[in-house]
């Protein structure tokens, strides 16, 4: 299915829309005129080789990198700062303080979103199957536990849009499948989820659309993973 067909298929107003997005790092163009609309309540798997522009696109959507040219509209606003409280972002690094425990990290980040609700931290940590009572500093967590805590941090503000960069890297298969199942539940609850991954097979059943990027461009959007793999 072509990009135009996909867009036509989604009758609803896009929740995320990018138009002619260009991002240059010096002379290197990480994004080359990317245009796409993304419908709400769907799980998008963003695929592509290293250097394809996946992380840059996600960082631009999170408001962490300013596009050189082009427009981004999220939740109806072109000012990402004004809607950032409704976006959850999980990066490839953990974005956590190694010297603090999981709950201490979550309590601090929850306060940045204006909440001191202990229950919210406990539910977020429980959702990723970690023990809230764990007193160990994050620096002593396994890589998989860090990834799950990082996801819990991204869920703290109950976001409408989740941007996840390589959430399954260094996670064992069973935990990764549990994470996929959690993401599918959140998608069913109405959240829009973008997952940048090299492990597309994990999302075979859960993703609504597979978006393939190459050399800073979206080259295809498909509903089935095998079509993608056939390319």
């Amino acid at each position, binding site marked *: 299915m072509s990009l135009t067909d996909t867009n036509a298929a989604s009758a609803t107003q896009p929740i995320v829309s990018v138009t002619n997005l260009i991002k240059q790092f010096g002379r290197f163009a990480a994004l080359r005129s990317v245009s796409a609309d993304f419908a709400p309540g769907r799980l998008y798997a963003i695929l592509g080789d290293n250097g394809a522009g996946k992380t840059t696109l996600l960082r631009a959507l*999170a*408001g*962490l*990198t*300013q596009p050189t040219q082009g427009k981004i509209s999220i939740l109806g606003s072109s000012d990402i*700062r004004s809607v*950032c*409280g409704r*976006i959850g*972002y999980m*990066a490839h*690094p*953990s*974005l*956590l*303080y*190694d*010297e*603090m425990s999981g709950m*201490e990290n979550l309590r*601090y*980040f929850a*306060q*940045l*979103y*204006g909440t*001191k609700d202990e229950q919210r931290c406990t539910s977020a940590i429980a959702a990723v199957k970690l023990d809230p009572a764990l007193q160990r*500093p994050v620096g002593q967590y396994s890589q998989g536990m860090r990834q799950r805590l990082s996801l819990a*941090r991204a869920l703290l*503000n109950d976001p409408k849009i989740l941007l996840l960069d390589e959430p399954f890297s260094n996670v064992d298969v069973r935990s990764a499948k549990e994470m996929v199942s959690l993401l599918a539940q959140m998608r069913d609850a109405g959240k829009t989820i973008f997952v940048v991954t090299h492990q597309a097979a994990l999302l075979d059943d859960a993703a609504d659309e597979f978006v393939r990027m190459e050399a800073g461009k979206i080259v295809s959007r498909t509903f089935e993973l095998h079509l993608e793999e056939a390319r």
Partner: protein
Amino acid sequence: MSLPSGIIRATLAKDLRLEWRSKDAINSMLFFALLVVVIFSFSFDPLAEESRRIAGGLIWVAFLFAAVTALNQTWTRELRNQVLDAYRVSPAPANSLFLAKAFGNFIFVSVLEALMTPLFIIFYNLRSIGPVWELIPVAALGTWALVVNGTFFAAMSLHTRSREIMLPLLLFPISIPALLAMVNATTNILTGEDSARFWIVLLATYDVVFTIASLLLFELVLDAE
């Protein structure tokens, strides 16, 4: 310009907790300042009168150099695991982060001063002739002058390749007026020859100007790529 006090308190508490556990900043500052005191005391053997004249300069230069190590640490820990990005994607204002960091550095440098000042007094046999209480506003305003610019320029040099060199290169020239005021005020108080009031007012003005400028510009610094 909104400054939610809850976020400032939370960030300050987090920084104090991290420092309490790692002791990165305090240990390096104390070690450095202690070395300066000992080396200077061996290098000079001043009489009491001479001590009063040079102590202001020695003490503030020692604190300035020692503070730089703490200022670098403040932001270095935000770079580990790119944790600063977690702050940037949240709705928390950049100014709150800046103020919390500046307050944190103020506490660290004040602790250093509280521990090192008695050593200075002993090593240099200092006795003040002027009003000693005036040293309190000089210390408070002088410390704030160092940390407010230091916190700002440490953030500015965060993404540069040799940030540990860059910070003193940016910070020291801009701190000259404040340093001049601190040294002259301290010397005037210790010697009792002149009033320190002019220098204290200058220091207060410097603090107000640079605090406002830092608050206005910090968001640009934080978002710089």
